[in-house]
């Protein structure tokens, strides 16, 4: 490969820079961008699984696991630190991902998707029904944690969590990029195109998918812990199937061909929600629905596929 920076990497760098700088001018953007980055991390996990041709309709279970890890710590241990929450959220989710993964990696396509959905609905029910521990549908408040022992005022904290999210997003983005280019990542993609051949090369496709699934769960947990800190609450809704649908939606919106699709999709999704909700109250879902229809019809490879499409059209014109 040449040392030249690919256009999509350049756009990713610009995006991360904008997320760092723009909220300094408009303070309401701090939380907006933090949410975009945190959700982008979760969607990276969806994009990983899409490389293997698998769609999880239950990924919100890992998002909820990360969020509730932070919430339970606050409720039962008290205090807490952003770094601790993120690390614990990621690890708990990865372990949960290993357990669920042992079952789901035996299945493919619709069965994989539905089994994930089933597991996520079990978790959702537990969070909803075990009122004594989880406060049921009200959820658990997540008090503002410290960062490496430092406490912050709410005004400063929104920037602190923004930059922590940004750092986590950049690391996750870089890590996923490296993973997708690595032998394991290529084997994950090989599951989509020819699982039989992979087995005949001496590699267990299930094992490859399980590793991908755990990484995907880990990312979901980190994103969940971040969103719980940003919104200062964890509710069962974090693990509801509509949440899983939202992550898949964002992945399709952004495009799964590149890790940056996760952030492009999350930015589009959260911006539409942020502004449409302000101006159109209850009909913002309608706007998103129309956006998705347009994407599927005119840009099936998502937002990051647009450039390629446009580039080809231009080439053809010359």
């Amino acid at each position, binding site marked *: 490969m040449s040392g030249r920076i690919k256009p999509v990497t350049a756009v990713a760098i610009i995006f991360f820079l904008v997320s760092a700088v723009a909220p300094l001018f408009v303070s309401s953007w701090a939380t907006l961008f933090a949410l975009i980055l945190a959700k982008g991390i979760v969607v990276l996990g969806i994009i990983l699984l899409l490389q293997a041709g698998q769609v999880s309709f239950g990924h919100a279970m890992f998002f909820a696991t990360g969020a509730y890890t932070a919430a339970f710590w606050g409720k039962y241990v008290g205090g807490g630190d952003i770094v601790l929450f993120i690390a614990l959220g990621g690890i708990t989710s990865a372990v949960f991902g290993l357990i669920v993964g042992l079952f789901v990696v035996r299945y493919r396509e619709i069965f994989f998707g539905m089994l994930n959905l089933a597991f996520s609905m079990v978790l959702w029910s537990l969070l909803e029904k075990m009122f004594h521990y989880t406060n049921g549908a009200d959820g658990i408040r997540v008090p503002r944690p410290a960062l490496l022992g430092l406490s912050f005022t709410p005004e400063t904290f929104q920037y602190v969590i923004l930059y922590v999210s940004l750092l986590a997003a950049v690391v996750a983005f870089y890590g996923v990029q490296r993973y997708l280019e690595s032998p394991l990542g290529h084997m994950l993609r090989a599951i989509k195109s020819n699982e039989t051949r*992979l087995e*005949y090369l*001496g590699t267990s496709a299930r094992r490859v998918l399980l590793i991908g699934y755990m990484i995907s769960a880990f990312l979901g947990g980190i994103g969940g812990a971040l969103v719980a800190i940003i919104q200062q609450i964890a509710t069962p809704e974090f693990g509801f199937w509509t949440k899983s649908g939202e992550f898949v939606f964002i992945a399709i919106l952004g495009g799964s061909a590149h890790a940056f699709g996760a952030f492009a999709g999350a930015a589009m999704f959260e911006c539409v929600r942020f502004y449409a909700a302000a101006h159109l109250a209850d009909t913002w879902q309608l706007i998103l629905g129309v956006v998705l229809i347009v994407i599927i019809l005119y840009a099936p490879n998502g937002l990051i596929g647009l450039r390629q499409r446009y580039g080809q059209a231009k080439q053809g014109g010359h």
Partner: protein
Amino acid sequence: MASVLLSAKGIKIRFGGVVAADGIDLDVLEGENLAIIGPNGAGKTTFLNISTGYLRPQAGSISFLGQEITAQLPRTITKLGIARAFQIPQLFLDQTVMENMLIAAASRLGSPSGFTALSALPELPEMERLLDLVGVKSYASRKARELPEGQRKLVDIALALALKPRLLLMDEPTSGVASAEKLEIMDILTSALAKEKVTSVFVEHDMDMVERYAHRVAVWNVGKIQKVGTPAEVLADPKVREQVIGI
């Protein structure tokens, strides 16, 4: 005398009313190219499927280098040194030819990395050499999907060679290839096998190919081995000529 690499004893399998293997006994000797011929439905591919663990025989056993491999998983058998090339090439179509090869190399090495790039594997020059050996090096950076059928077949075989097998099982290596190219491909292939010191078993329909490239021939008929011998012996047998070759 050459040592026995693969040994099948009393292999039996039936699918409903169809008997695909009815007491198959066969030894594959180290260093030979053994051709399997026989009419359609005689159980030739079934034998390859059993030898590679894709199917479990209902009776009989199969051993490789003295080790029992009956009903092991394909990936376990692959690790022991039996590679397979398919009648319909089985490639990772969305990846480049070189990426296909490197995935095979990473598989052989085991415990693949999740962080260092696939293209940074030290096996790259070796994979280039193998692609060159089967004559498809110029396609290395093309997506497997873009290759014509004949070339895909060669990449499929190169993938198997990338595993550094002791034994290569090939299901009709020249089917789907234009007859003008068949000889060329088989020439490339047999010289590559000799160079890599790989023993091979190949299912073949074309008697010219068998005559030219096989050291020994096993004739399959309705799940049984009808005759084993040198190509000259087998092709001279009137029963084989009548029932298998059709002349």
